[in-house]
């Protein structure tokens, strides 16, 4: 990883005696999508607010492009685009006018504004409704308008708090696609979400939060190896055939076979056993309908990690 864009060291936030964020340390590299993931109330939003200087830091340091958000807020805010959790706009103004206002706050002149706003709205697919009042916009359109603001700003890093929250699956897939396309333009992205599985596909690296602390950090594959002990998961769907489960379990390298539904098997194994599994199904006289290799799911990693913790504590 070349350059560090965001750096948090021992970042802590106290509310009275309770610690909402407890000594969090992480860094986001240039051009990376970094996910702050964890259940509601884990401290993700509070961490983001401290990075932006929107709340005081109780202890530790935060640096954005080397600037301290408390002492040099303007330097930080010039380079960072922020999409708050459930972003709001002025409902009585049009989408374009809302962006004009923020663009003027950024100090853009009229000509640049016109061009950038049109381009940004086109980018997020809102050109058609540029002159409609935001009051009529759906949740997904508001989120996209928020992204348009970040695009317009030419932000070097985008901080997105729960960007897919409250969106239907289609809208959230589209939004994640937009986020990915931001990355291809060299924007570094820090995003938070409590929907682990939904965002795991876009994140290069993730930090899993629990009760104000980062419990796990790394790429999804690394975390999978670390918590699930490596290994692969192969899913088989077949019709007919007898004793398939038994045949699959007998394969060398198989650790376990589950049957979550009739005609579906999930094999945990040491290597990619798709070929062998297909052969066994056919040999048992079944018809193979589907065969897939699963990435470990973050949800599973998270849950499994805490089961492990529980056992350790109990012991």
């Amino acid at each position: 990883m070349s350059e560090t864009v965001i750096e948090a060291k021992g970042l802590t936030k106290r509310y009275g005696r309770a610690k909402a964020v407890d000594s969090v340390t992480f860094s986001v590299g240039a051009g990376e999508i970094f996910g702050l993931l964890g259940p509601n109330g884990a401290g993700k939003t509070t961490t983001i607010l401290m990075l932006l200087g929107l709340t005081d830091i109780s202890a530790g340091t935060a640096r954005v492009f080397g600037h301290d958000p408390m002492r040099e807020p303007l330097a930080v805010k010039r380079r960072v685009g922020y999409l708050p959790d459930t972003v709001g706009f002025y409902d009585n103004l049009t989408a374009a006018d809302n962006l004009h206002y923020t663009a003027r706050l950024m100090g853009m002149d009229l000509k640049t504004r016109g061009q950038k706003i049109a381009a940004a709205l086109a980018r997020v697919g809102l050109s058609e409704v540029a002159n409609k009042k935001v009051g009529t916009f759906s949740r997904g359109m508001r989120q996209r308008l928020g992204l348009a603001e970040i695009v317009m700003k030419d932000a070097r890093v985008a901080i997105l708090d729960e960007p897919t929250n409250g969106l239907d699956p289609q809208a959230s897939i589209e939004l994640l696609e937009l986020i990915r396309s931001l990355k291809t333009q060299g924007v570094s992205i820090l995003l938070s979400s409590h929907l682990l599985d939904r965002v795991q596909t876009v994140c290069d690296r993730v930090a899993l939060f629990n009760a104000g602390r980062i419990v796990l950090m790394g790429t999804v594959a690394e975390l999978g190896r670390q918590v699930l002990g490596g290994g692969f998961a192969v899913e088989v769907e077949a019709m007919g055939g007898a004793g398939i489960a038994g045949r699959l379990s007998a394969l060398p390298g198989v650790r376990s076979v589950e049957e979550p539904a009739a005609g579906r098997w999930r094999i945990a194994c040491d290597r990619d056993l798709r070929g062998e599994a297909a052969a066994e199904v056919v040999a048992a006289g079944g018809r193979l309908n589907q065969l897939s290799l699963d990435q470990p799911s973050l949800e599973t990693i998270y849950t499994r990690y805490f089961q492990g913790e529980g056992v350790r504590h109990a012991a």
Partner: protein
Amino acid sequence: MRREGSPWQGLGVVTLKELSDHFTSARMRVLEWLVVLVALAAVYGAIQQIRDVTAEDPFLFLRLFTTAREPLPSFVSFLSFLVPLMAIGLGFDAVNGEHSRRTLSRILSQPIYRDALLFGKFLAALGTLSVSLIALWLLVIGLGLITLGVPPGGEEMARAFIFLLVTIAYAGVWLALAMLFSVVFRSAATAALVTLGIWLFLTVIWPALAPAIAQAVVPPDNQEALLVTAQMLTRLSPSTLFGECVLALLNPTTRTLGPVYLSQLQGAVMGAPLPLWDSVMVAWPQIVGLIAATILLFVGGYVAFQRQEVRA
């Protein structure tokens, strides 16, 4: 701690946006109607009375502002309760409104200081109030010209103009108070209620309560101290200060606003009007008091806003 960049960056942008919001809002429509109705009612009432009573008065025009005719109050009494209502109406949701629209954190993540947002909102609301008050003032003077048929003298106009400025300062106090509570309370309804409560207390209850408090703390044999204390206490209310300013400015025979001492009466012809500048000096402490209260309340709101967590 030195901060980089100007604290006023974005001030003009915020002020213009807020001004345009105010001028297109439904509240402004209400204000405009109030202005017209108040001007008509006040002039109508005053004209009748002035025609009946005052034949020869060097300050005939100023009577337009101060004369009441039952059951209508005079123009200045109209103003003394209309102005706080207008100011509170424009200020009570200044900051918490941005919060509930969830726009605050988006705006504050732009490269501006919070100073610019708060001060811009204050300037825009004060500008809106000033425009309404100037319109009202012009309307009353215009109606006066038509109905009285005599033009006002230069000194009368000067007094009326200073009175207008004082009214704007009076509006500033209530605006700053409303904005302070719009920072402190997350709910706009709570902020409005608390501000209105304080206004009622200071305007209606406090003038009655102050003498009672004075009696409780000052030994009863010292009449003078009692009077002075009571008066000092009532002056904690901006409404009292405004009333005293009005008295000094629009009633040129007013020589003093405190208890009268013999020394002040020496050489004075009772009933003779003071020159303009002397009248302003009589009201000067009150005028400064109004401006100082505005600044103090604004700074209070500013301090509260600086340290506030902005969670969308």
